[in-house]
């Protein structure tokens, strides 16, 4: 029963220490004020205990300066904690530009992870240490939550949209991965590990094993199978070369950035946004592609840089 017992989680990521410092500050505030209140009450209760039923204590209405003091001090503490917590949160929400992207699909009751190089994992995520990792996640069914306590991160994984998370692991090792949004019968079993490795070991792991090609290559294959090129390569539909991450002008005059969500929506609900100058004739592929396949298509489209229609690594 005592094996593994500790009262402090591993600090496995760059943000863990910062979060812990704020956490401990809050612990100190909590314990301090609880102690102050309890001790003051005990002191008053003892010092002013009733000695006879006939006692008539002095009636005190209140004290405005005191009210202001004990309003403004808590307010001050709250402002400090709010600003501290918010700035940490904003910093922790913006993935660094050079992050390695990994894609997560949650479903009842397992995690499916895809590396862009093609490796696919279930309930385990191998990553290199000291490298920022950005996760792009969606669910196939209900809302899940990707949580790694050692990294102090979590994010809901929602069907119908992509949510993102980033972290940078600072120590090698094996860390719990939990689903933190109740998702049905085997919610407790929807867990695994994040396995952090030294860079060389990670490269070895990545290149070992039987694999069918990178995500972008898988996406290219799908692109062929679904015959996307019949419109997107012939002018009937907009060319997809170099569009990823760029603004797109729509037929209703508005402009959107072609990000993961836009690509996913275009494949599943093509009539939602029509590119200016093109007819609304794209059929939907809903039911024909899984969430993992959508991510592969996205990887392929991302790879269509300035080069004409060639899948790059």
């Amino acid at each position, binding site marked *: 029963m005592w094996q593994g017992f500790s009262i402090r989680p591993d600090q496995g990521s760059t943000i863990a220490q910062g979060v812990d410092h704020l956490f401990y500050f809050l612990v100190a505030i909590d314990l301090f004020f609880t102690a102050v209140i309890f001790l003051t009450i005990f002191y008053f209760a003892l010092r002013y205990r009733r000695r006879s039923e006939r006692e008539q204590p002095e009636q005190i209405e209140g004290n405005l300066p005191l009210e202001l003091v004990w309003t403004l001090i808590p307010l001050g503490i709250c402002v400090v904690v709010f600003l501290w917590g918010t700035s940490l949160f904003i910093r922790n929400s913006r993935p660094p530009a050079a992050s390695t992207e990994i894609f997560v699909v949650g479903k009842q009751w397992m995690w499916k992870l895809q590396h862009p190089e093609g490796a696919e994992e279930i309930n385990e995520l191998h990553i290199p240490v000291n490298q920022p990792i950005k996760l792009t996640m969606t669910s196939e069914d209900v809302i899940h939550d990707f949580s790694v306590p050692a990294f102090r991160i979590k994010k809901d994984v929602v069907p119908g949209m992509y949510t993102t998370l980033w972290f940078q692991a600072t120590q090698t090792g094996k860390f719990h991965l939990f689903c933190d949004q109740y998702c049905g019968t085997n919610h407790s079993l929807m867990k695994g590990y994040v396995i952090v490795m030294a860079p060389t070991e990670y490269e070895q792991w990545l290149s070992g094993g039987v694999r069918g090609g990178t995500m972008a290559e898988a996406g290219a294959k799908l692109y062929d199978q679904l015959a996307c090129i019949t419109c997107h390569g012939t002018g009937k539909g907009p060319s997809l070369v170099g569009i990823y991450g760029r603004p797109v002008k729509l037929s209703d005059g508005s402009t959107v950035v072609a990000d993961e969500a836009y690509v996913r929506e275009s494949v599943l*609900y*093509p*009539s*939602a946004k029509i590119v200016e100058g093109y007819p*609304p004739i794209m059929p939907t592929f809903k039911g024909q592609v899984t969430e993992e396949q959508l991510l592969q298509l996205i990887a392929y489209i991302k790879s269509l840089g300035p080069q004409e229609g060639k899948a790059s690594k």
Partner: protein
Amino acid sequence: MADSHAASALAHQFEDLEQQHDAASLGMWIFLATEVMFFGGLFAGYTIYRNLYPPGFAAGSHMLNVTIGAINTAVLICSSLTMALAVRAAQMGKKNSLVAFLLLTIALGLAFVLIKLTLEWRHDYWEGFAPGLNFTFAGPNAKSLELFFCFYFLMTGVHALHMVVGVGVLGVLLVQAGKGRFGPDRFNAVETAGLYWHFVDIVWIFLFPLLYLIGGRY
């Protein structure tokens, strides 16, 4: 006879008739506030989805019958008039006018519900507009169209339910009015029912343009 009539009009927990009347009014206003929050949830959902899916919602709106909607609006506004006149009649102790106006209000309320059920909804069902029961649209906007009709049936349905309850309450008041129960010292029930009735009318005044008149057809 007038004294004991007055005495029986005052419930035991109140000090005087004025307090009783004030309490009844305030109670109904608070109840209407809860109804605003109740409908508010539906209105919020509708607004959010309308902003997400403008073409589907506009298409759905165009499929509704504005003429019937407008007739129903007129019916309800008239019923609010007759209700207000009923309240006045109760306050003035005019029993026959009260009975007549209550009857008219009930008739107009029933007309509203009947028009909606037999002309609109039956037609909508047979045309394949009813999500979950008989929805037969395909095409690019099918899903947001279905969502529109969910809200349409939900909001007008909840509204119609409130109308039916209102008609029931007015029916009870009608019977009591026929027995001469109401007069200048005892008309709270009619007045608070009137407040409720006007509220149900106002909800429709919001529903009609939001559901029937969007999409820039005028």
